[in-house]
């Protein structure tokens, strides 16, 4: 297989992780870095003499220095950068969330409609072994008609007002709802299908400009109802902790990072009735390289394969836009004191 040349835009914490995978997996190497900070540019030049360093994405495109690009910049710049890459026919992996809001992502959707290239939005949580298994079970309809869905995301990240771009809505789009909790919304859409209506409230516990807590009621196109509850100011949660519970006509399913627990009234195929539990060691799949979790590796492997084959991915700009539409609707509902808001369908 031809070795792919990867570029990373934004050499921060996640940029570095992606750079490691881009260089460490067998069919790819890190060929270029785009970074506006002069300090980081100098460090990259010093330690990676074979890697081209550019200050802007336009310079990267002009140099034809990469076969794919990973965009790991603050959220507010994702769309403009990705749009230029798509116009230049360069496959792109965009860190989540896709954009500040769904409307802002429209030029990127239009660019892909004109000139489609493999594209991915980095909802790597889909690749966590437990969530993979849960989605497989749900896609086989083992629960029957899903009726009720509870979901939560908690982390102790912010116990006093934070600084930096993540806590400025102009560059981040908002608080916990659009950052860590966007993973939950992406998972819910992936596992249970479209969300058509929401009513939600947001609260500022410690921040001045963005929400630290969100609670929202969700209506699914399938007829199921549910809620999300999320906070980044939740004590005793060392790492982001996502839990999802679903109840259907044939049983229940609970999934988090640690395990999947399934209860079925009636067996479905090879899946027995009663309780079945899969713990992490039951589901573990080895990876060629683990930097920060196997989910990032599986995501990158899928992306590189799509780049090689010029094929589509499950987590792409279209699915990322759907997540964005749900987020927008929850913010709109919160502005209207929790009134029900329909989720826009910007894809039609």
């Amino acid at each position, binding site marked *: 297989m031809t070795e792919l040349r990867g570029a990373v835009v934004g050499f921060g914490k996640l940029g570095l992780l992606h750079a490691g995978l881009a260089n460490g997996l067998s069919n790819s190497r890190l060929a270029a870095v785009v970074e506006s900070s002069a300090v980081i540019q100098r460090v990259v030049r010093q330690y990676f003499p074979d890697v081209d360093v550019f200050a802007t994405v336009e310079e990267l495109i002009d140099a034809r220095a990469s076969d794919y690009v990973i965009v790991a910049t603050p959220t507010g710049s994702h769309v403009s950068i990705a749009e230029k890459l798509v116009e230049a026919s360069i496959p792109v992996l965009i860190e989540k969330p896709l954009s500040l809001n769904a409307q802002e992502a429209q030029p990127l959707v239009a660019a892909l409609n004109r000139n489609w290239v493999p594209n991915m939005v980095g909802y790597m949580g889909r690749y966590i072994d437990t969530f993979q298994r849960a989605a497989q079970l749900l896609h086989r309809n083992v629960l029957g008609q899903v009726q009720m869905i509870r979901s939560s995301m908690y982390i102790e990240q912010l116990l006093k007002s934070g600084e930096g771009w993540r806590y400025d809505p102009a560059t981040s789009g908002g608080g916990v709802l659009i950052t860590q909790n966007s993973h939950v919304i992406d998972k819910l859409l992936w596992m249970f299908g479209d969300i058509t209506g929401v009513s939600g409230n947001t609260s500022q516990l410690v921040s001045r400009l963005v929400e630290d807590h969100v609670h929202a009621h969700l209506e699914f196109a399938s007829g199921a109802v549910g809620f999300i509850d999320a906070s980044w100011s939740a004590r005793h949660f060392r790492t982001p902790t996502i839990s999802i519970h679903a109840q259907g006509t044939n049983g229940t399913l609970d999934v988090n*990072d640690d395990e999947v627990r399934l209860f079925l009234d009636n067996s479905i195929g090879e899946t027995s009735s009663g309780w079945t539990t899969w713990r992490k060691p039951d589901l573990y799949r*080895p990876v060629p390289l683990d930097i920060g979790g196997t989910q990032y590796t599986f995501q990158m492997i899928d992306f590189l394969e799509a780049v090689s084959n010029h094929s589509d991915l499950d987590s792409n700009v279209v699915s990322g836009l759907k997540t964005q539409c749900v987020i927008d609707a929850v913010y709109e509902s919160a502005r209207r004191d929790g009134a029900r808001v329909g989720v826009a369908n910007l894809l039609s």
Partner: protein
Amino acid sequence: MSGVALPRIVLGHNAFFGVDHLSSQRGAERAAYFSEVENVMTVIASAVDSGAGGLMLSTHPRAAAICEALSIDARLASKLEMFPLLPYAQKYVTRANELGMVRVVTQTLAEASTRDKVGLGLDFLRTMYRRDPLDMVRALMRLELRMFRKLNVSTVFLHDALSDLLMALNLPKVFSLYQSTLRRRFGTTAGIATKNLPLLVQRFQEWGMELPVVLTHVNKVGFQVNPSQEECEKALAHPKLAVMAMGTLASGYLTPNEAYSYVNAFPSVQSIVVGTSTTHHIASTFLAIRQSVDWR
């Protein structure tokens, strides 16, 4: 191989800091219990009495209090070799969310300079950063290892998240700096943690560097063993390898007897780090190690 003689049984720190690879909820409960240093010391004392010769300790914010308590307990301190694991990655990851990568380093060092008076003024740091960022790495190592200064340390492990990243980016220079800094400034040996042992062996051979003491997962179900169980087993047969095995119980998934019968197949495993949180568990686990492993 470094030639360092490792204690056979090393007590791990995960339970003390709420790290639990099988259950986050159980991890959080243990973190609450072990927020009292006395509870940590009770477990450490029990482990020493049951035969532990070492303690692995991440540079977690709460590790300093444990080091301090150990340093005034002459009996425990004399029987324990300390194995720092640095850095405590989550501390920097969470802070980097706010400050960005460059500022998280400069701020951490600047705060330390006023708090600990280690003589690292912000301007000085900026100058160093402009000259060579590896100077910052040296300064961070000095800061992270400060809490161990009154204790017996012979090997310092680099966290797998960082070492696997450095291997992926093909940066032998950073490993060399890490090894030389530990040897010259601290008189200790460099250990490397990894989640991909075969890659480590391959890289160090390509770089012409002596194999370090390695901390890696060894368990019969292959949990967190990469790139495959088979390739890791082959790598474990390397004649010049000295391994401290972690994850032997696959986070409580395996029974001690089945776990250690498997580990016994690999003579390169010279030491086992076990994270336990109760005196009862310590006694039964250490007994299983003694019964199952023929140290060769």
